[in-house]
């Protein structure tokens, strides 16, 4: 009896495996036919790379970037935006670290079919990626790098100079974001004494730097300036260090995996002041890690809230309809716009090109004149490759959710 039971199940398993594999191959061949048939002639393939953290602490943001680019490319293919060409997404994981980021860039640069790259998330990773992509004339558009030096050089405050002509971004920079937060705290929230903490990474350090400068200029006082290690999980020491100086708010430069626990531990230690951060902490995961006491914490983020704009509603609906497992997260809108800016440039550069490599230079040139209405507002680039839009928003945690406080166009004083 045992034998028959076993035999029958072997047959069933085997049969279902065969059916499954048939179904898979059938799927594959059909979709190939579709693509071939729709254009009628031979289609050439161009790849848009993605470099973002697809694993690790920041993967929630990175996967949002990847899927948003996939959505943009899928829509371009469906509408046959570039006749004769089919676009593909090639996503590489940088783990939010410089070395894997550099490897990802090298492997994309070695692929003759890659025409552009969306990424990275971290400014520090972009610093490694830029010099790899630039010599090959591969255009790079970042949805999330906010380090001012990437577009305007190391001396961006005194002597702005564009280091790489291939680099663009759809988000505003720390040169705007830090001061924007400083003005909100000093002018709107009437806070005069703050403490600052950053995680010693390029993003956090830059944010705290520009914040401090503007806050002092306005007349405020930075009573304590501390740092934490990127691998810390216990922040008691640093909280005890800033507590005696009695700040009214804490400005944090860094991302949500550290900011959430920091907020929680700060309040558990009896320091009941709001924590404010940049776009790196503007994520639902921040509230999850910060717990109930994170109510009242603040964040600035680039652009207007994605849900509020009319142009964004279609993106949100399309994204949800596409059924990706992960949400579009903080940079979904910017990634979608970044991918579309490349696609818009390709409409010009790929039209008469015979292969991808010969069209790369023309794509970079075409980026300068890209201008369209994107998810996050008007998408266009200035002479440095920065977005021309300077709109930012302040968000506040209320009842376990990020709520919009104010959206403003940042004006240089």
């Amino acid at each position, binding site marked *: *009896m*045992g*034998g028959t*039971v*076993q035999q029958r*199940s*072997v047959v*069933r*398993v085997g049969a*279902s495996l065969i059916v499954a594999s048939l179904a898979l191959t059938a799927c594959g061949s059909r979709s190939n036919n579709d693509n071939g048939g729709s254009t009628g002639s031979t289609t050439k393939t161009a790849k848009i790379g993605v470099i973002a953290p697809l*694993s*690790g*602490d920041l*993967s*929630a943001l990175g996967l949002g970037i990847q899927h948003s680019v996939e959505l943009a490319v899928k829509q371009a293919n469906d509408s046959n935006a570039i006749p004769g060409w089919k676009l593909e997404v090639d996503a590489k994981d940088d783990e939010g670290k410089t070395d894997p980021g550099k490897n990802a860039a090298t492997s994309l640069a070695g692929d003759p079919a890659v025409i552009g790259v969306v990424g990275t998330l971290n400014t520090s990773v972009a610093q490694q990626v830029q010099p790899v992509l630039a010599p090959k004339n591969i255009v790079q558009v970042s949805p999330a790098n906010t380090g001012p030096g990437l577009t305007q050089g190391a001396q961006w405050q005194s002597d702005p100079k564009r280091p790489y002509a291939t680099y663009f971004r759809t988000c505003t920079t720390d040169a705007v974001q830090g001061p924007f937060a400083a003005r909100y705290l000093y002018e709107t929230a009437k806070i005069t004494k703050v403490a600052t903490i950053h995680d*010693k990474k390029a993003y956090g350090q830059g944010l705290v730097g520009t914040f401090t400068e503007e806050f002092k200029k306005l007349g405020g006082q930075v009573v304590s300036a*501390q*740092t*934490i*290690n990127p*691998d*810390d*999980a*216990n*922040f*008691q*020491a*640093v909280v*005890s*260090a800033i*507590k*005696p100086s009695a700040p009214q708010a804490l400005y944090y430069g860094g991302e949500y*995996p550290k900011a*959430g*626990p920091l907020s*929680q*531990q700060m309040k*558990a*230690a*009896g320091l009941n002041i709001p924590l404010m951060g940049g776009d790196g902490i503007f994520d639902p*995961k921040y509230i*999850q*890690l910060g*717990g*109930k006491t994170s109510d009242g914490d603040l964040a600035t983020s680039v652009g207007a809230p994605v849900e509020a704009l009319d142009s964004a509603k279609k993106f949100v609906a399309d994204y949800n309809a596409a059924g990706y497992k992960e949400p579009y997260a903080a940079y979904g809108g910017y990634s979608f716009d970044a991918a579309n800016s490349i696609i818009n440039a390709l409409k010009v550069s790929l039209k008469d090109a015979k292969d991808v490599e010969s069209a790369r230079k023309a794509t970079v040139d075409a980026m300068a004149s890209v201008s369209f209405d994107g998810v996050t507002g008007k998408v266009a680039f200035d002479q440095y490759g920065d977005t021309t839009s300077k709109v930012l928003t302040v968000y506040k945690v209320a009842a376990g959710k990020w709520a919009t406080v104010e959206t403003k166009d940042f004006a240089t004083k």
Partner: protein
Amino acid sequence: MDQFFQQLVNGLTLGSLYALIAVGYTVVYGIVQLINFAHGEVFMIGAFGALSTYLLFFDGHTSVWILPVMIVGAMAASVGTAVLMERVAYRPLRNAPRLAPLITAIGISVFLQEFIRLLYDRPGWAVLAMAGLTLFAAYLLGARFTKVPLDHPITKWRDRAPLLAATVFALAVWALLRLAERDLSIVITLAAIVGGLIVGTAAGLLFAVGVTGTDRAKALLQPIAVVAVATGVLMELGWLIFKEIIAKVEWPSAKQLIPFPQIDVVTGKAIEIGNVTIQRSAVFTIFALAVCAALLWFFINRTRLGRGMQAVSQDPDTARLMGINVDRIIVVAFALGAVLAAIAGVSQGLQNNNIDFRMGFLAGLKAFTAAVLGGIGNIQGAVVGGLVLGVVEAMATQYVPGQFGGGSWKDVWAFVLLILVLVFRPQGLLGARVVDRA
């Protein structure tokens, strides 16, 4: 002055955590002269055990009576891991050169980290882990029914083959049936057990006849049947638990930090004494260390098993001649360390409000430092070493001025202290100078 007391409280909290983990290093070292470098992972698994218990049974609740259950869950996970680790990674290497267990320890440590990370991302893999445990448990059960001493040094692999074959084949029958029909139904359940029994016993007997002859096979019939039935029953039980409980929980991804549950009384608003704030979780940690230290002292000095441990740590060979089961004492030492590490895991979760699969590494390294600081092999020394280390770390972040001060240098001081102690007092703060036997 307030600042001084504040840092003292912070330091003692941190130190209690280190001390709880350090005891695990020291107990094991005292008995087998082995540094269990995977002990940091036992601590990490304790924290994940507590979190899993919470997610399985109490998701969304915050009342304080959950905490003891979480601690029991943490202990079960930690002790299970430590005992299993001892059995598969250290016991076979008992008489090997000292370098061998060290290398296994590092391997085990990486394995455990990746195991937790993958298990949380793909809970379905729990079934594979269950299959492994079932094989092991069924084999142990079957071994009890044999008259052949399977643990004897002269036992060959082929002596164990019939029992192993029986469980493997019973497991294969189970797997095939469940691949075809995943839902729990009484018919399939019975078929898996009965089919496993028949196929497993047949395979086991075949092996027995093949390798040892017919007489031996007759004597092995009962244990083989027991093993085959046990495999089927345990696997079905595991599958029931998986289907009804584990598969219904939404597991957070372990790629990122996982928030640790908030429990009334031990987390929440801090207690203020003057200008010194004491977190509730800090009180819990210090209290836990005090209770554990007292119980440990009682266990080591007043119970039979504890005195057995002392005897083995002084001279294992003579202890064995006196009728002490050294193997059992070693398992107890591992388990004891794991119990304390589990409590430390829960404490750290409550303090930091988040855990991740890498948390064992640095904590383990610091606790090892604490154990060496106090004099490795000396339990009081581990507690003192942990507390000293915590206080030094907290004070250094506060009082070292300028460029080298502040939170970012805090990990440096532990190791500076370690080097100083090794140079000037190599036996540790409370350790006695011993002649190295090796």
